[in-house]
């Protein structure tokens, strides 16, 4: 068994893991990245389209270019990393067990852990599409890997279910390869990815976008030969008589991403409704000294936002090691944040009462699009509105970020639950933001 020690061990060498590692190393602490693939970079490496880095670097980069900037920094700072290495267990005392084919079993003892494992795609099984189970059904990200990394086409005529960003980007990518994308079919009455992808990937290439429909049957016993799509009502139930058959030899699914937290769960940490770990305002999970950032915590719109969150996590881990590690500081009282009306989930899940004088970064997604709304933060115990903000519109594909100093907003220290609602704007005064 090979043993390592590090102040901070980082699980995952993608955009989140590398950004966090760089922060920790710059502060002079020992850090180790554990990556399961054969190179650093994570999912960015198969995202060969442009659109990354506008916020972080002020220029438009491809995924591999964006990743390379961080890989270069990792190398310059001589941050150690293990490749082809799969973490199999995280224990409560922050020991990480992993395996690879060179060292065998690996044990890493650390003071803090940063979880940066990213997310996985929702599958056909998760949405229970009826029909046959032929070859030719792929998640969009899997198809992206086949095309961009392996160099193979998984079909010639495609239907894409779900208007997630990867689905729309693959629609364009496949069109460039000479494939035909018959349709992008979305169950919601609105696009679930970014507007810019709808314009640049679908509209610019005349790829039909069919809203309010879903795939209700898969045809073909051996190889897929088509799908039935049907219009759905507001409960997402199939409307009888609305069936349409579309011929295709491959079906891609772009029906959502789920933070990947089996390790987190097995370590004994609590997860929240978005399948990300429950974290406090320090991005610290319910296990002391275990932090989370990037898509393992919540699925972000842009990698730039992942980088920003990961830098915060890196600095919060440093702060933990310097100020709290080994001192048996008791966890103080916490306020629990609750996703209210039209809020899918909210991060952080908890706020330490002792931290309310600091600025807290709240992030959440709405469940459905709405216009002319008001975001409200309410103290449940005192039934008091402590903060409100008007917005012209909200859509599920755009994460809402709100920085807030709760003390300045005069939160009562008796507050135990903070409810976040997105509600129609009260028509008192008309004021645009």
């Amino acid at each position: 068994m090979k043993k390592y020690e590090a102040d901070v061990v980082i699980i995952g060498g993608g955009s989140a893991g590398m950004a966090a590692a760089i922060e920790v190393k710059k502060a002079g602490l020992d850090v180790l990245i554990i990556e399961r693939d054969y190179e650093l970079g994570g999912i960015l490496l198969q995202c060969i389209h442009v659109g990354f880095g506008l916020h972080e670097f002020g220029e438009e980069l491809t995924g591999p270019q964006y990743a390379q900037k961080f890989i270069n920094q990792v190398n310059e700072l001589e941050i150690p990393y293990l490749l082809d290495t799969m973490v199999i267990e995280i224990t409560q005392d922050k020991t990480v067990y992993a395996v690879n084919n060179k060292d065998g079993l690996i044990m890493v003892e650390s003071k803090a852990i940063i979880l940066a494992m990213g997310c996985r795609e929702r599958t056909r099984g998760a949405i229970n599409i009826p029909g046959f189970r032929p070859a030719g059904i792929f998640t969009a990200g899997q198809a992206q890997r086949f095309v961009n990394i392996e160099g193979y086409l998984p079909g010639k005529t495609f239907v894409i279910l779900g208007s997630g960003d990867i689905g729309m980007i693959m629609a364009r990518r496949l069109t460039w390869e000479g494939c035909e994308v018959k349709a992008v079919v979305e169950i919601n009455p609105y696009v679930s990815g970014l507007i810019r992808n709808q314009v640049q990937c679908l509209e610019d290439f005349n790829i039909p976008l069919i809203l309010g429909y879903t795939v209700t049957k898969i045809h073909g016993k051996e190889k897929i030969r088509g799908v039935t799509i049907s219009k759905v009502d507001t409960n997402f139930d199939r409307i009888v008589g609305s069936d349409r058959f579309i011929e295709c030899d491959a079906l891609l699914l772009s029906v959502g991403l789920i933070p990947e937290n089996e390790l987190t769960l097995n370590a004994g940490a609590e997860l929240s409704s978005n399948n990300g770990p429950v974290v406090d305002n320090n991005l610290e999970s319910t296990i002391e000294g275990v932090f989370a950032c990037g898509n393992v915590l919540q699925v972000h719109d842009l990698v730039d936002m992942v980088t920003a969150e990961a830098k915060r996590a890196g600095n919060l881990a440093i702060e933990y090691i310097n100020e709290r590690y080994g001192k048996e500081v008791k966890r103080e009282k916490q306020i629990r944040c609750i996703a209210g009306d039209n809020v899918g989930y909210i991060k952080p899940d908890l706020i330490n009462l002792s931290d309310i004088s600091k600025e807290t970064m709240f992030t959440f997604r709405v469940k459905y699009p709405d216009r002319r709304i008001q975001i409200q933060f309410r103290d449940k115990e005192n039934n008091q509105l402590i903060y409100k903000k008007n917005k012209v519109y909200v859509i599920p594909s755009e994460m809402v970020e709100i920085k807030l100093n709760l003390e300045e907003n005069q939160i009562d220290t008796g507050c135990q639950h903070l409810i976040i609602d997105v509600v129609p704007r009260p028509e008192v005064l008309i004021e645009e933001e």
Partner: protein
Amino acid sequence: MIYDVIIIGGGVTGCCIARTLSKYDLKIALLEKKADISMGTTKANSGVVHAGYAADRQYIKRHLSIHGNKLYTQAYRELNFPFQRIGSFVVAVEDSQIKDLEDERKKGIQDGVPNLELIFDKKRIKHMEPSLTDDAVAVLHAPTAGLVSPYELTFALAENAAMNGVKFFRSHEVVKIKHTDYTFTVRTFGDEFKCRNLINAAGLYSANISKMLGLDYFDIMPRKGEYILFDRNAMHLNKILFPIPTVVSKGILVCPTLHGNTFVGPNAQNITDTEDTSTTEAGLKEILEGARKLVPNLPLRASIRNFAGLRAVPDTHDFIIDNTDVYGFINVAGILSPGLTSCFAIAEKVKEFLELLGVVMKVKEDYNPIRPRPERFKDLSKEELDQKIQEDPTWGKIICRCEMIPEREILDAIHAPVGARTVDGIKFRCRPGMGRCDGGFCRPRVIEILSRELNINYEEVTKKGEDTNYLMCHTKDLLLNEIKRGEEAE
């Protein structure tokens, strides 16, 4: 070369017969239509080893299943497939149903089903199975009922049979059979086999095979059963839960698997197409509604797959295990539930029939009944794992992250006797792709390994045989072809 015995059909029945006969000094071959064994009815069923009280007394299947259940104990020791007697509940939710359960219990005990017990104590029921509905008024507990992984059992049987000399021919669909001079000539696409004795274990296709020899005394109809599978750890059940059975089936179960998943199903729908394993919107609704009667709180959000399997339903209502009018031809047909339970008993029966036909059963000197337990990453302690990786680095390369499967297990699945040739073959042997990501992570890696080990191109790697390749061509091939066509047109 004339075989002593040819078996048509590589499901659990055919493979169990092959393994049972492999003990004796006989030349045996097994022909399977699909690209792999175990890919028909065997692949998609409930995987329940029944206690054996359910079928009517007039039927042979009752007696074969009661006996067959007992034979699992020794087979499990020899073949090392996943099997566990966790016990089953048949759940009465109305007082009027209790009498039926009491009748079942009495008759079951008379016929040799051990330890059947009718439980009325609600507290005790709830203690034994906390997830069960509060509506339960009584349960029939059968502690000898168990779970088996039907495909892993079948692979174990085939591996052991092959170790003992049985020849397996996959992708060999039988298209014609001739019987002259006490010899069968069995034609498949491209090949011809000769044998003295022919066993028809062709499942859904067994009536067709029988008709090739002019024997049309039975018919087989497919009856579809749909299932929904939930993620590992989504819920924990202690028992196999059955409702009160109906005429056509044992009803919709809520059942754990030996790999920690839970499934609900099957429904029962008579169809005509023997290849129609499609699931339906109505069917999936039906099984969820049925399952909720036993377990009201199903983990719907943790559903990871739906699938359907077909039962081979005979019009005789019973197993058809016959020495037929064609000398040397044995039908083993209509093996639906409790066929999996009965497989070892059925194989014994077939052996007896062959003896009646004059086949001499002389035990081979080098017969080895043991199929070693496949080594599994998740069974190893950390120290064992470390040791293994030092000896063989492929233990340290994880290919499937959901089920934690290292490359070694996949290589073993490929290089085992009657090894995997397809992505599904690997999935059912050692589980990559069985998990919650549905192969999203491991599939490209499994394709790479198959391509390398079988020395074939990526485009030739298939899901389940011919016409099921995942990849069509290299990127840019479509564009290059278009350019070429344009140039030719000019």
